[in-house]
């Protein structure tokens, strides 16, 4: 009923094309996360779905209805703006109450819903304040609250948690998920947080320069990125790429380092390839493995990120262990060959 389907949608600002034909199908009750580099058109796409931006080409359907010509207020969509867009002349409570008043809900019902949302968002002591009197994260939570008090057909979230601390973010994440379980509302969610994307999404859509690069379940994206761009984009730190070619059953990088290939690869000898291995799939070897020169060690507490030079390529490894090696020392690493990705000259992943 409230599926959203986007067909060949394009958008240009004057001469600048920012969306070049996007197709996405979102099922009723699905949780879709949009990711992509800054400026790739995520907010623009959300705004077009919401009806705030004229569609330069293509079609957007919500449920059965083509909504290209339906005005924003009739689409029954709640959106959290990246820039919050709070009503500065209303208190926090009034900001949240506004849409409810318009729906004609009575005061008791409104107050109950607002109290509930404020509770979830930790805004209860601030209900009487004006947006100006809030911190950045508090404002963002008000923007969030304004959306969740409603009961819309579709939720659009544009980086709704970007200004929250990690702890709060984890809480909010599970609140949003439980909201979605409860209401079964279709949600489209833009985020830059990998964990958010991976844990919340039913489907992640990876965009780049106004085009969809891949749309799939989180784990499929992680495990089988369609191309180098997606492979690099999903996962942080990014996947390491090493250029080289196949020599027999192993991969030899351009500067002569030999790396293991997954067992069941169908590649022809001599083929030019890009070898991709995620930082978390490098293990420390006990003397064996590939020698790598330590360039930078960054402990994050739980893990340690190490920048290494293998031949002339720089790769990053993330290890659970505390690395004590200093800059310039050589350590040995072992790539998990079952987790290696290979990309052809056209950047596409080899099946």
């Amino acid at each position, binding site marked *: 009923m409230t599926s959203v389907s986007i067909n060949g949608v394009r958008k240009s600002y004057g001469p600048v094309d920012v969306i070049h034909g996007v197709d996405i199908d979102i099922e009723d009750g699905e949780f879709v996360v949009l990711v992509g580099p800054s400026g790739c058109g995520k907010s623009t796409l959300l705004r077009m779905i919401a009806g705030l931006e004229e569609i330069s080409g293509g079609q957007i359907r919500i449920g059965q209805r083509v909504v290209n010509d339906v005005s924003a207020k009739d*689409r029954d969509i709640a959106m959290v703006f990246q820039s919050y867009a*709070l009503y500065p002349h*209303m208190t926090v409570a009034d900001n949240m109450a*506004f*849409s409810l008043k*318009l729906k004609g809900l009575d005061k008791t019902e409104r107050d109950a819903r607002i109290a509930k949302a404020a509770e979830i968002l930790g805004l209860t002591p601030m209900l009487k304040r004006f947006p100006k009197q809030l911190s950045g994260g508090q404002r963002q939570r008000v923007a969030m609250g304004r959306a969740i008090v409603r009961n819309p057909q579709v939720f659009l979230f544009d980086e709704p948690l970007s200004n929250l601390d990690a702890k709060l973010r984890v809480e909010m994440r599970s609140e949003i998920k439980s909201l979605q379980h409860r209401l079964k509302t279709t949600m489209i969610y833009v985020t830059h947080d990998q964990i958010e994307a991976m844990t919340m999404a039913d489907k992640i859509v990876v965009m780049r320069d106004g085009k969809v690069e891949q749309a799939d379940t989180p784990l499929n994206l992680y495990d089988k990125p369609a191309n180098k761009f997606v492979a690099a984009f999903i996962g942080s730190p990014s996947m390491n790429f090493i250029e080289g070619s196949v020599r027999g059953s192993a991969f030899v990088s351009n500067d002569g380092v030999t790396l293991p290939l997954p067992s069941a690869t169908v590649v022809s000898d001599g083929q030019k390839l890009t070898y991709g291995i995620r930082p978390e799939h490098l293990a420390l070897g006990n003397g064996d493995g590939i020698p790598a020169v330590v360039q930078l060690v960054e402990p994050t507490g739980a893990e340690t990120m190490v920048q290494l030079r293998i031949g002339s390529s720089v790769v990053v490894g993330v290890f659970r262990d505390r690395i004590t090696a200093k800059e310039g020392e050589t350590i040995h690493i072992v790539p998990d060959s079952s987790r290696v990705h290979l990309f052809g000259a056209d950047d596409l992943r080899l099946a």
Partner: protein
Amino acid sequence: MSDPLAIVLLLIVAGAIGIPILVYLALGAGEGMLSLMPVRAGQRLRPWVWLLLPIALAATILIFPVIVTLGTSLMDARAASYIGFENYAWAFSGSMLGIVQNNIIWLIAFPIITVVLALAAATLFDKVKYEPLAMTIVLLPTAISFTAGSVIWTQMYSFQPAGTPQIGTFNAFLGLFGMRPVPWLIQPVVNNLSLIFIAVWLQLGIATLILSSAIKNVGTEMIEAARLDGAGEWRVFFSIVLPNILPSVLVVLTTMIIAALKVFDIVYVMTNGNFGTDVIANRLYYELFAASNLGHASAIAVILLFSALPIAFINIFQFRSEARS
């Protein structure tokens, strides 16, 4: 011809470029001096450095005459001897009362009509592509001098008895529907409203201009958020746009209330207060220049000044609340 032209150019260059540069340099010098002082002292003095010129100018052009007027309001017609509050006693008696009544009609009708129309115009113009044209047209009356305005409106309101061809536009229009012509400027009550309408015609442009620039400054995303919240155009206007431009509405309202209090030209030129349309400022003019009664005129002026105080206080509330949030 070249000589006066040179003078004109010189004046324009001196006034429009020279003085601003001097003002800038003066401010710069002031700031320079402040920066030599201890920070706190500088902060305390800074407002006065900035306000020096505006205050000096306002003091000379407005405050000084007002003080003189306060003095002469306690003196006789020729400002020769002190007579206490006699002028005020006179001002609150007899013929002045009917006049005050007219000002009250102005005070109620004029600001309300103007603000409502201006809000409507500013909002609607914002939605059409030919806004510049529309804006220019509502501003045109302001550009037409009053003298010419009187000619126009005499034409519009012109009245011929029923049965004869009407030259006046409004009466001719009424005639189309078989209605009797109305002596717009003569029939009591109607005539005050007719005069008020002229004032609205003249001032609407300015009110619309102010409100329009305020409306344009209301955040687009906030309005979009309201639309998504399900607000229709009316609701967006009343719940989002209006509260956000309230300071500007207050500015317009204040300006118009004050204009209603001191309305003069229109009444003077159109009826000179005949037919029961007299207003305070016209009386002031009469006392000052026709009757040469400086005392009476000053008393009227002082009363006008005091009548503006409530409006001033309302504005102060607004300033305060702005400062708080």
